[in-house]
């Protein structure tokens, strides 16, 4: 499989990363270099092999469904680029 300029543009859009037009071609080349190298995984027989999850089998820990945190509005907002009246300010979402 090989990616072209068009694919890079699409993937960059999916990843929400602005990639300048003149960088699409070089980026496609770089990605192809990496993807071609990754292709060697096709040599491995993975018939009847389960995907790895964890090296140490353990049950997912359970906890009581209770509130353990909260009432820290100002801390939550402290690093926001823009706030107003205790809210995050974001670009207009609905026209």
């Amino acid at each position, binding site marked *: 499989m090989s990616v072209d300029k068009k694919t890079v543009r699409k993937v960059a859009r999916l990843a929400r990363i602005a990639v300048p037009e003149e960088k699409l071609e070089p980026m496609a080349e770089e990605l192809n270099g990496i993807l071609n190298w990754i292709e060697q995984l096709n040599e491995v027989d993975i018939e009847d092999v389960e995907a790895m999850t964890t090296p*140490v089998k353990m049950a997912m820990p359970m906890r009581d469904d209770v509130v353990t945190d909260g009432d820290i509005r100002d801390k939550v907002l402290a690093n926001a680029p823009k706030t107003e009246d205790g809210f995050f300010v974001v*670009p207009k979402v609905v026209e």
Partner: protein
Amino acid sequence: MTNLTQLTLADALDGLRKRQFSSREITQAHLDEIEKANPNLNAYVAVTAEKALAMADAADAQLGKTKGKVGKLEGAPLGVKDLFCTEGVRTTACSNILGEFTPPYESTVTQNLWDQGAVMLGKLNMDEFAMGSANETSRFGPPTNPWRREGANTKLTSGGSSGGSATAVAADLCLAATASDTGGSIRQPAAFTGTVGIKPTYGRASRYGMVAFASSLDQAGPLAKSVMDAAIMLEVMCSADEKDSTSLQMPVPNWTKSVGKGVKGMKIGVPKEYRMDGMPDSIEKLWQKGIDWLKAQGAEIVDVSLPHTKYALPAYYIVAPAEASSNLARYDGMRYGARQTGSGSLTDTYEQTRGQGFGAEVQRRLLIGTYVLSAGYYDAYYLRAQKVRTKILQDFESAFGAVDALLTPATPSAAFAYGEKSDDPVAMYLNDVFTVTANLAGLPGMSVPAGLDENGLPLGLQVISKALDEDACFKVGAALEEAAGFTARPERWW
């Protein structure tokens, strides 16, 4: 008085408890060193001098009491990789996208250190989001390795991603440091700087408050001046933590007790697949020396095979970018970090924020990750890679049926110069060829300095052990350390 910054952590803790010097004295000594060295070495990206001295005074008060609890690290000044959230102290993972992010909470790993009386000197340089093997991708510029080739003054990398941590430990700018390892980011810098680094079993150390890169691979661990120091640090850093559902719910062993126990009767595996074409002679020779040292101390050497080793790096470069593309989706410039508004629309704000905030290597990996997870490709890439991971783990499990630990080189070369490998991403990725297998299989891995190459640069040997058997790493690591008698220090040019 002896030079306080040159003490090992173990000796410093001893001196502090005997009141031979105060925490304020040893902390100030480190701050003085940092002030002198950091302009040349760029190990620290933030120095928290005031906080350090306040913590030191609190530790001194504790040490001065006749009764009461003295922490395991009481009064010891340490450095913290900029990947760990530290309350009230800027944490950026050395990325522009985090701007001046100042966490309102503390990571579990660092909280564990402070609970035991440690002193924080500051935050340490790293590759952006821990993505790199040379620490070249940091927004603050790279640190410089204290080690140089004999008779040359070319600036060498300290390795990555924990390059700042390794630099600080090697140059006596802290007694020990926290670091993290996703594909070799503790062990490769350790090998490049003549320091000791260990990544424990996946889940031993909590990932709460650690900036996420690839969640199924990320694991915290220390960089230290000796195997004993690494054991002291790791014991405190690890804990069962309900804030991280992948944290192992089991007690942390007393690893310090394994240091010096010896390797008599242990079976040590030597995997033939780690003998690579074109591997420098000096590394081949060092590996053989390591084998001879362990044999001389009573270990039995067994040849083993890990047939899927060559597929580890390609599998890693699917799994890690895929998980990163998901983890780093949170950086949208809305709730924290640096926002770039662009034309003002929501999509353009996202795209400009991320296009300007992420560096080239991070963007490259996010695009790979997004691509391999995009519609129609999941089975061909991510699922296949996760199955290859199972094969790699099975290789290890069958080897560990016959041996207690594995001995390998830590890196395929000594430290290299900046820019030497940055043109070709794949060539850079090959740095982690010996370390990445332990991440994929979730196993403990340690790098121990064992000798110098023909240019006078340090080289490391790696010990890999069974899941949950860090004890074996500490036993074998200490045996190698003792036999190697590695006392070389970088010449102080900085």
